[in-house]
């Protein structure tokens, strides 16, 4: 290389980045507290679940990204692997936070109206459609035969066992990949790379079967009467696109700050292709789910979209397609725009906000229901919670990154290929 890269340079987390992420966390905490104390507890819980899920998904993408690169024996990405590896290090925090939110949402109760029987009862803040006390007991006031039929799978203890299983499993696989990569730095040789390959393949097999279930449990069970087999893959696509966007945005940011000097336009071009391609994939799955239900028009299926077609949600329903399909499609299609850092950065921001809206459309209609107007759907609680979690993610990410000894896996067998990547 013409310019020597300092592989041993460490990231320093201080100054503006640290202040800003701490301020964002403070804003988030303040907004969440205000939300609880000003009578918007249910809406705040829904937002916490939304952002907790989003946060966890972005961190899971770190594991998926590393695993795909190892399983495919990809060369181009070798010098970037420390970034997704740092996502993995944040994953355990995200997982604990998500579990806490879900547990609190089920544990704390408030007066609600049941959906099927329209009765005034006391129910949990989250998962009220199936976690309501007595909903599976025949003869009870709130007995719901459909939920009782699903209770073999959808009951509180098994629900938590599953969540723990997914999140713990993904974290362990991810941390193993990080561990092997660190060992490789110290020892060299192919031994750790081969182990990473095995673990990556095992993870991808496990992940492929369990990630739809993770989405079914965490998000789809908010609308427990409804089900869609597309939902898991649709959520995976959203997770993958948003995670790639966050990763690309951080790559651009770190490069601008003078770190990762070896990241070139060619690496960013690849990330842009990933984002572009999987945005189309997301659209395909979103539309496949929608079209079949539209065409068949079976009441129990259409109910899901009926809720999302309430006048308060409808503008956001359409905007979801514009921001997650049309925007990346038109912005990222040309080769030149994937290679222009400014354009790519804008696309990342669009997609991060877009998939927030996507998750918003999955969570809100089934938890809080419509507000007074379409434009009050997204208010200070939504914005504040988003800012808080964004701050939390960046704080944990940069903090973990500052503890990484070398910003590049020094002894990765494909490192040279990545440093000379050219497309």
């Amino acid at each position: 290389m013409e310019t020597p890269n300092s592989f041993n340079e460490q990231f320093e987390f201080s100054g503006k980045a640290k202040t800003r992420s701490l301020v964002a966390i403070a804003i988030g905490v303040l907004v969440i507290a205000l939300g609880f104390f000003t009578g918007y507890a249910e809406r705040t819980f829904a937002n916490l679940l939304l952002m907790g899920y989003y946060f966890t998904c972005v961190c899971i993408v770190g594991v998926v990204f590393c695993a795909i690169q190892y399983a495919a024996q990809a060369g181009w990405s070798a010098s970037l692997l420390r970034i997704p590896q740092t996502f993995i290090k944040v994953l355990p925090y995200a997982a604990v936070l998500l579990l806490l939110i879900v547990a609190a949402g089920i544990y704390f109760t408030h007066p609600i109206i049941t959906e099927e029987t329209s009765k005034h009862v006391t129910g949990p803040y989250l998962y009220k459609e199936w976690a309501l006390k007595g909903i599976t007991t025949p003869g009870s006031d709130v007995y719901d035969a459909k939920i009782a039929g699903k209770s073999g799978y959808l009951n509180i203890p098994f629900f938590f066992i599953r969540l723990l299983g997914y999140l713990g499993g993904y974290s362990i696989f991810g941390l193993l990949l990080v561990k092997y990569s660190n060992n490789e730095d110290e020892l060299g040789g192919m031994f750790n790379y081969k182990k990473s390959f095995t673990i990556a393949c095992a993870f991808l097999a496990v992940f492929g079967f369990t990630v739809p279930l993770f989405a079914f449990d965490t998000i789809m069970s908010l609308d427990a009467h409804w089900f869609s087999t597309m939902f898991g893959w649709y959520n995976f696509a959203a997770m993958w696109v948003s995670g790639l966007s966050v990763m690309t945005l951080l790559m651009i940011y770190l490069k601008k700050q003078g770190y990762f000097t070896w990241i070139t336009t060619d690496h960013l071009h690849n990330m842009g292709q990933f984002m572009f391609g999987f945005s189309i994939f997301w659209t395909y799955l979103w539309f496949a789910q929608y079209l079949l239900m539209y065409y068949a028009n079976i009441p129990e299926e259409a109910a899901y979209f009926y809720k999302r077609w309430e006048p308060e949600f409808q503008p956001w329903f359409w905007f979801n397609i514009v921001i997650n399909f049309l925007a990346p499609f038109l912005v990222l299609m040309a080769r030149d725009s994937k290679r222009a850092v400014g354009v790519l950065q804008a696309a990342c921001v669009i997609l991060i906000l877009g998939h927030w809206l996507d998750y918003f459309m999955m969570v809100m209609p089934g938890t809080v229901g419509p507000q007074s107007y379409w434009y009050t759907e997204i208010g200070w609680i939504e914005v504040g919670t988003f800012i808080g979690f964004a701050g939390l993610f960046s704080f944990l990410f940069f903090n973990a990154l500052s503890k990484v000894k070398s910003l590049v896996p020094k002894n990765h067998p494909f490192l040279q290929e990545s440093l000379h990547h050219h497309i």
Partner: protein
Amino acid sequence: MSSTKFILGLFDDPDDMMHGIDKLQKNSIPIYDVYTPMPIHGIEAKLGIKDSRLGYAAFMFGCLGGTTIFILIYYFLVHDWPMNIGGKPHFAVPDFIPATFEWSVLFASFGMGFTFFYATHLFPGRAPRVMDFRATNDRFVIAIDAKGNIPHDDITNLLKEAGAVEVKHNDRKYVSYE
């Protein structure tokens, strides 16, 4: 004035050929084109070749395909012979999307294929013409337009110095596989 139209420098090593390009460019000799049996990274930038506009052609063909089928379905299912399918409105846009998507892909791929054939003179059934047969086998060929260029011997020497295994002075531009 000789009858030479093109001077070809044949190299058996891509690095030598790249070196030859450098030498010619240093001596301000315009290069007509370079033919290699395999893709060589960075050669487009070196020769100053503009990016291919094939993608834009594909996009336009895709738009054409999508528009065509959308208009056709509209004519069939809304205008000419409206049918009640599952109680849906006649102009049920979501039902039109899969066919629109398929035709966009079909037109984009065929359109891109034919544009490529047109741009490279590779029509099916036509024997391709090349400047040197071995450029598709084991030789890396630099072609220089002989007209108006400084004494041909100088170019020959430059190419030889750069490591060309053979320098040809051709009276015809192309040879054909026919």
